[in-house]
């Protein structure tokens, strides 16, 4: 026997992480400050990795000259259209696969077969099919977004408690009403989590598609800067992409807070 004597030790707490804006901002600012210090002290050769200050100056010049907007505007348009198309079709297919047995096996077989194919490898094929214009880039983004959205939505539908669907049936709700009022809201957390993934995939594929065949766009701009060994401009383009990623994550966070307030 072992004798114990003393106050009960607190063992609860934890496992409930909260978002802290200043911790996130401080980390990013700290990393940039370290990077700047490394460049100033000569630890980091600025020929290969320009200093943050130089990148900021380059960004300012690109903004004032209008060159940034000339490249950013088509990228944003392609991103918005491609992501929206891929998301709408992906949610539709995900719901169908999640709800109907007739579509589940064939749908998942197609998704499983096509999802692992690197979509960047398909860009030349899309250029042949849809031309060098906007079509091929939008399709690249849409296809890249489509498959993860199908998987996220179908998973979300699978996780909707069947007792809620039975409740809807017991009250005589139509299939459409059950999908609209029970299945879709129940799958929304998974769909919104999928948005975080698909938004990043969309940016990656957009840049790749623009590098292969575009006159304007952030991808084309970065490639052109790289060809000219203009590392300041190249990094400015990359910073724009990074900021784009942050803005998209922030918007999705707002959506989650608004639409999932019930959690």
């Amino acid at each position, binding site marked *: 026997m072992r004798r114990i004597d003393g106050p009960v030790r607190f063992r609860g707490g934890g496992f409930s992480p909260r978002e802290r804006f200043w911790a996130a901002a401080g980390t990013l600012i700290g990393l940039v400050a370290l990077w700047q210090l490394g460049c100033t002290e000569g630890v980091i050769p600025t020929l290969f990795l320009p200093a943050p200050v130089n990148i900021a100056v380059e960004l300012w010049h690109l903004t004032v000259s209008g060159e940034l907007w000339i490249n950013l505007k088509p990228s944003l348009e392609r991103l918005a259209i491609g992501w929206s198309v891929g998301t709408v079709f992906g949610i539709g297919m995900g719901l169908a696969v999640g709800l109907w047995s007739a579509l589940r096996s064939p749908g998942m077989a197609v998704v499983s077969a096509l999802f692992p194919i690197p979509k960047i490898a398909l860009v030349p094929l899309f250029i042949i099919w849809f031309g060098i214009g906007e079509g091929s880039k939008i399709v690249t983004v849409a296809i890249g977004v489509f498959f993860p959205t199908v998987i996220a939505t179908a998973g979300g539908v699978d996780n909707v408690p069947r*007792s*809620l669907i*039975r*409740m*809807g*049936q*017991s*009250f*005589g*709700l*139509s299939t459409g*009403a059950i999908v609209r*009022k*029970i299945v879709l*809201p*129940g799958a*929304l957390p998974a769909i919104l989590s999928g948005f975080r993934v698909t938004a990043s995939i969309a940016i990656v594929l957009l840049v790749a598609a623009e590098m292969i065949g575009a006159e304007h766009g952030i991808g084309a701009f970065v490639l052109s800067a790289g060809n000219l060994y203009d590392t300041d401009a190249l990094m400015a383009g990359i910073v724009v992409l990074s900021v784009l990623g942050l803005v998209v994550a922030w918007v999705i966070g707002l959506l989650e807070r608004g639409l*999932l307030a*019930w*959690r």
Partner: protein
Amino acid sequence: MSDGLRLVLRGVCHAYRDLSVLQDIELVAEPGEVLVLVGPSGCGKSTLLGIMGGLLSPSAGSVRVEGAVAEDCLNPLTYVFQDFALLPWRSVAGNVSLVLEQRLSRADCAARVAEVLTLTGLTEFARAWPRQLSGGMRQRVGIARALAVRPACLLMDEPLSALDAQTRDLLLEEFVALIERARTTTVYVTHNLAEAVRLGQQIVVLSRRPGRVREVVRIDRPLAGRSATDRDLLQVETALWRMIRDDAVAAEREIEHAPH
């Protein structure tokens, strides 16, 4: 409220693949009557309720509803679920209006929601999320949602079993008042014999799986005059327990020894 439906079950059998769950069930729930289904675990009480409500199709036999329903009845056979089955993304009022908003004008819907929230004492929680409510309050929302469609027959699947004893007693008395006021036919599944004798006018005892009607006990006293401490009700409760006990023990052992 509707005057209630007559629910007639003839030769109802049900099997899950090779496992026979219900066999040859013959029952009649008269209009406005409270029929309570009791029996050991796994005897098919909830399955039978599912068949009555049209959520499950019987392997054999038939379920018929007879009678007239009121014009404002939106769902003649209405369920109340053990786990409440509330939509967590809808407020209390949103859950109650789930069916109404499809079938009524906005004004009529709001009026009916307000009426049932008042009836169930939920008015001040109309905008609360289900997660903010206690178990008892959540089941009140389930009841309010059911009453909002003006049912002709309430199908209640162990509605109090997920609640603590005190809440169960309080809510049981509210059920009595609501059932008396609404005068709907009610089929109430429970494993709690005290609930069965407090509510039941016809208590149907099912045998262990495959469930058959083993005994039908009738209590003619009005619900309002009953109390949990009434000697005659306690005697019925004891008699019911004697009927079920051996089956309940056998069913429990069956569950313990079931392959995992």
